[in-house]
Structures are given as C-alpha cells and as structure tokens.
C-alpha cells in the first residue's frame, strides 16, 4: 500500500511538473514573441537632416540594446528551453558595420553576456546556422571567437559547414573595413569607440595578405568538405565558398577586373572593356 501510494504520488507530481513546464514554456514563448515584435518595430525613417538622422539612429540603437538585454535575461532563465537560442540569436543584432559614433550608438551590454551563454549552453546545438550567417557580416571580436568555437566543437556537419563559410566571410569583410580605416583615419575613432582601441590596433597591424590567405583557406575547406550542404536562404555552401574565393582572387585591389557584359537601360548590349582607356567607377546600386 505504501509503495502504491508513493507511486501514485510520483505520477501526480510529474503530471503537475509537466503541466508547470508547459505553462512556463508557453509563457516564455509569448514573452519571446513580444520582445521580437518590439525589436522589429524599433526602426526609424524619414529623417530630414543629418542631425535628425543621428537622433533617430540613437533612439533605435538605445531601444534595441534595451530589448537585447531582456532577450538575454529570458535566455538565462530558460537555458534548457529551445527558445533560449532563438532569444540569443535575436539579441545579437549589431551586424551592420557602419561606424556610428559611440555617443550615438551607445554601449551594447547584451553582447558579452549573450556570447558567454552561447559558449556555455548552445555550442553543440544543431540550430546555430542562422546565427553563424548573421554574425558573418559583423566586426566584433566575439563573433570571430564564436565562429571558431563552433567550427571546432559543434558535432553537426551542416552547422560546421555554415560556421566555416561564415568565418571566411567574416575575415574577408573585416579586412575590407580595416582598409577603409587605413584610407580614412578619422574613422578610427568611431571604430575604436564601438569595438575597442586594442582590437582595432591589432587588426590594423595585421598583414593584409595573411588575413586574406586565411579567408581563402577557409573557403577552400568549406567547398571541399561541405560543398553540398544546403543553406536556408538558398544555394549551397560550395556555391557561397566558390563565390568568396572568386572575390578574393579576382575582385581585390591590384587585380585586373573581370569583364562585364549585359544590356543597358536602352537595351543596348555593351561590355565593361569597351571603356578601356578611361578611369571607370563601377557603382552597384539598388532602388529602394
């Protein structure tokens, strides 16, 4: 009788526990959804003057940094809930490397905590692909550390594939940002404010050829080891890697530009090489 009663008691409490977990999970899902929507709403537009534009940007950054902190707190509480990784992925949002002054952009206190949590709880997840893609266009040191850790430790082939090509993109893009700072030293102040004085100095001291060589090696590895892995946005890792390699080998300063051929806005066929003998500025543009 004692044992049966104990069994009954255990059953009831585990049902109650399960119901409690479901309630908590549902509540967290709602909270994440609310934060995600608030995050999306925090965008600005329609500013007329430069000063107004800076004010809009400052508001957006401040708002998003605040929401990012709440997302990190949600992830901290819910470390065993899949929603934690969704929250952290949304919290890592500064992947645009426009060098806004630090007075406008403000500090991002969520970033360090987000990556500490990612390192501690999520490094072996099979859902890290989107975050790898997202940080590949960023500049922060934490993004490089994270991508290298995923590449080394994640057991899922598809995730390692995305981390490999993302790290190659990251190194290539970051080097292009440094070229910009070398050309316009007055931008150094903005980059230092956003990312750190020592970090920027270390990057500027790095040999360009070495940074590009590592990116090329990672692209080659991605194409060779993971070429067929499909990407969520379409295409394969192999295609992205080969495009990155093409850019490093043929579209860098000092290379003869590949020829371009197509129709202009009048339907007339022409080539870039038609303009040999002239200085040419190629402008890739899009209409909003």
């Amino acid at each position: 009788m004692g044992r049966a009663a104990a069994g009954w008691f255990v059953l009831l409490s585990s049902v109650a526990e399960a119901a409690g977990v479901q309630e908590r999970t549902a509540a967290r899902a709602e909270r994440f959804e609310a934060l995600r929507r608030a995050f999306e709403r925090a965008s600005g537009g329609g500013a007329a003057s430069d000063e107004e534009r800076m004010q809009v940007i400052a508001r957006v950054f401040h708002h998003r940094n605040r929401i990012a902190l709440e997302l990190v707190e949600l992830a901290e509480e819910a470390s065993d809930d899949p929603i934690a990784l969704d929250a952290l992925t949304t919290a890592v949002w500064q992947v645009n490397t426009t060098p806004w002054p630090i007075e406008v952009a403000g500090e991002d206190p969520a970033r360090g905590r987000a990556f500490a949590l990612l390192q501690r709880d999520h490094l072996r997840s099979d859902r890290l692909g989107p975050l790898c893609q997202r940080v590949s266009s960023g500049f922060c040191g934490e993004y490089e550390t994270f991508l290298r850790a995923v590449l080394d430790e994640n057991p899922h082939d598809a995730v390692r594939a995305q981390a490999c090509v993302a790290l190659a993109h990251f190194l290539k893009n970051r080097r292009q940002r440094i070229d910009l700072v070398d050309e316009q030293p007055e931008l150094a102040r903005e980059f230092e404010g956003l990312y750190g004085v020592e970090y920027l100095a270390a990057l500027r001291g790095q040999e360009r050829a070495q940074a590009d060589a590592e990116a090329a090696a990672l692209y080659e590895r991605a194409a060779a080891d993971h070429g067929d892995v499909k990407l969520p946005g379409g295409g394969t890792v192999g295609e992205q890697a080969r495009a990155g390699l093409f850019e490093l080998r043929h579209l860098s300063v000092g290379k003869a530009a590949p020829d371009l051929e197509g129709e202009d806005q009048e339907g007339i066929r022409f080539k870039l090489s038609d303009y040999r003998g002239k200085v040419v500025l190629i402008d890739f543009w899009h209409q909003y």
Partner: protein
Amino acid sequence: MKKLKDRPFALIGVNVNGYDPAQLKAAMEKEELGWRSFADPGPLGRGPITVSWNLTATPTFYLLDHRGVIRRKWVGGSGGAVLDSAIERLLREAEGRGSPR
C-alpha cells in the same frame, strides 16, 4: 563628378534590383539617374553579375584605372572626398600627368 565631362572617366552602374532593361529605364527616370547602367535581370540581388561579383551590400564601388586594374574598392559606400581624390589621382595617370602608385 560633374567636372569630369571632358576627362577620360566613365561612371558605369550595375543595378541589382533584378530589373530588365525596360524596368531599369523606368526606375532610372523616376530616380533621375542619367548614367549608363547594366541591367542584371533575375530575383532581387541574384542576377548573374551581382552573384558572380559576390555582392553583399549596396552601394559597392570598384574604381578601375585606365588599364582595367582594380585600384580601390568600397563595400557599403565611401566618403565623397575620398572617392573624388582617388578618381583625380587615376585621371592624372590616364592623362600621363601623374606617377603610378
């Protein structure tokens, strides 16, 4: 860049919206853009030129010298003064006045 009319310079656009030439012409008239642009038909950002040049951000600029060599590259825009002085230096090379860097 308006003063470059009589100098060996060309501004060539590549539109990445994926418009065909007729759509591109309409868009350029609406935006009041006069310079020659390649149409790159296909899904937005996925036309053959945009894909093969691995575009990740607009605007992206490539500055070529008169021999077709890439001398500068700016992904995601650049300051106007930097662009102007870079163009000027390459124009002098093309005109035989400057010394190559």
